[in-house]
């Protein structure tokens, strides 16, 4: 279709795509550029190349502690969200319970509600009942907001699966547990994997809940970066940010290997 258009239009298309690409990637490129500069101050383009800010980050307790907390929360969230969300998606897909249609809506509702509204509610409720927030608060609230992604990707995969396989397994004498574990779960696998990656990525990068549910000693990486940007930005923030970008690129590469990025984008 693009080939059949006139030359000026084709040129305009190319210019448009290049400009959009520059616009979308510019902040990432700039952050990477700042991180390898020798300068004391945030400067782009960098004049001299140096890895000193990466050394500074690795030697910084604040960043290392924050990274450790982010990683622990993200791993816990990925495991629980995938398990709980995957199980719910299987039950919703079977449409055997009353209100099946409404159930899907309930599970997707955290997606619709702005995170900031949920963050306030969670902070107020938690403080009223349990007192100070903790890593458990982050674990639970991140699991809530990542659940819809797992449910959605798993439902999408299940909707294309063969509905008679479970019945066939039953006819062949498989018990309830065998049917679930050997027939249904393997069919869900691509959806569960995609959901798990969503869950990890969202939890690791999440700033809104983490900002509301922070307290001294409970700072995730995005909150640590946010705090530095507000008060004392220096190139070490760029080094941490670059490490986070590298992690994202790695995740995308793994997703492409396992599922194909195109499929991921459409779910």
């Amino acid at each position, binding site marked *: *279709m*693009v080939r*059949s*258009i*006139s030359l000026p*239009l084709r040129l305009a298309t190319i210019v448009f795509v290049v400009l*959009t690409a520059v*616009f*979308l*990637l*510019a*902040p*990432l*490129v*700039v*952050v990477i550029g700042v991180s390898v500069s020798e300068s004391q101050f*945030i*400067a*782009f383009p960098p004049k001299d190349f140096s890895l000193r800010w990466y050394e500074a980050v690795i030697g910084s307790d604040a960043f290392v502690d924050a990274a450790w907390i982010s990683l622990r929360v993200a791993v816990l969230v990925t495991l629980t969200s995938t398990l*709980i969300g995957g*199980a719910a998606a299987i*039950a919703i897909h079977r449409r055997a*319970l009353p209100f099946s249609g409404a159930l899907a809506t*309930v*599970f997707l*509702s955290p997606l619709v*509600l*702005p995170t900031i*509204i*949920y963050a*306030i*509610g*969670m902070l*107020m*409720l938690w403080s009223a009942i349990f007192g100070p927030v903790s890593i458990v608060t982050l674990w*639970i609230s991140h*699991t*809530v907001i990542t*659940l819809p992604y797992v*449910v959605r990707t798993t439902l999408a995969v299940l909707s294309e699966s063969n509905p008679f396989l479970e019945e066939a397994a039953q006819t062949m004498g498989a018990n*309830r547990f065998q049917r679930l574990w050997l027939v249904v779960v393997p069919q869900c696998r691509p959806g569960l994997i995609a959901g798990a990656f969503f869950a990890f990525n969202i939890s690791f*990068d999440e700033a*809104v809940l983490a*900002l*509301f549910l922070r307290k001294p000693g409970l700072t995730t990486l*995005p909150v640590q*970066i*946010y705090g530095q*940007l507000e008060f004392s*930005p220096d190139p070490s*923030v*760029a080094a941490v*940010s670059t490490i*986070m*970008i590298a992690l994202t*690129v790695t995740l*995308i590469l793994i997703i492409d290997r396992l599922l194909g*990025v*195109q499929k991921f*984008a459409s779910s």
Partner: protein
Amino acid sequence: MSDRAENTLLLLPGLLLLALAFFVPIAQMLVLSVSGETGFTLEHFARFLGDPYYLNVLWRTVRLSVLITLICVAIGFPLAYIMARVGPRLRLWLIVLVILPLMTSVVVRTFGWMVLLSRSGLVPDILRDLGLAGRNFSIMQTEAAIVIGMVQVLLPFMTLSILGVVTRIDPRLEEAARTMGCSFLKSLRTVVLPLAVPGIIAGSLLVFTLSASSFVTPNLLGGARIQVLAASIYRSVTQTLDWPFAAAQAVILFVGVLLILVPYARLAGGRSNG
């Protein structure tokens, strides 16, 4: 164990989690927004709606969110169309182009814009070199900075929403229009655009909601002077510690979003049914 018991067992952990950790906190927040020292009160709402400062914050939030949504449609529709119609190799690269920023933390991307837009940053430098701006020109701490940053943050959501719909449009429809004498741009306007409307509406709902409720990017790029509603909520929670007032503002934000979403979603539903 019956089928029903098995499915209930699968569903129960998720339902319990959502009930206790999602619906109860929201209910708690609703209650707090109308609770005063002596029981039920609407004073927090009255305080917000009676103060020109907060009305201005509300108006700025709506204005910026609409503008950001419109710009995202203007860039997102052509981008999604091009993505849908290029060859598979190029499409893969374009998808990576959209997904890479999407999956990168908002804080990191906002940092990039802070560097680019700051007084000594690349963008004001270029504008000065081109003679388009004066020597003391700065974009940081302006509404323009918020719009630029937010469009970059939200454009991937819009593009992917429209892409999902455009890829399902049969290219033969366009060929038919071309055969009948339509120019390329006319076939785009009269064939593709109307068919892409559900995607544009879905993307707009998403972008508008996310835009109205975000505070990280507006706080860092707009500064304390240019407050949006979500930033004001954050300040009430963390600085003035006025939680009931924060809850009331959150309810106003949510009602405002719903007031715009519901008619818009109706429109989309009506169109896709009809």
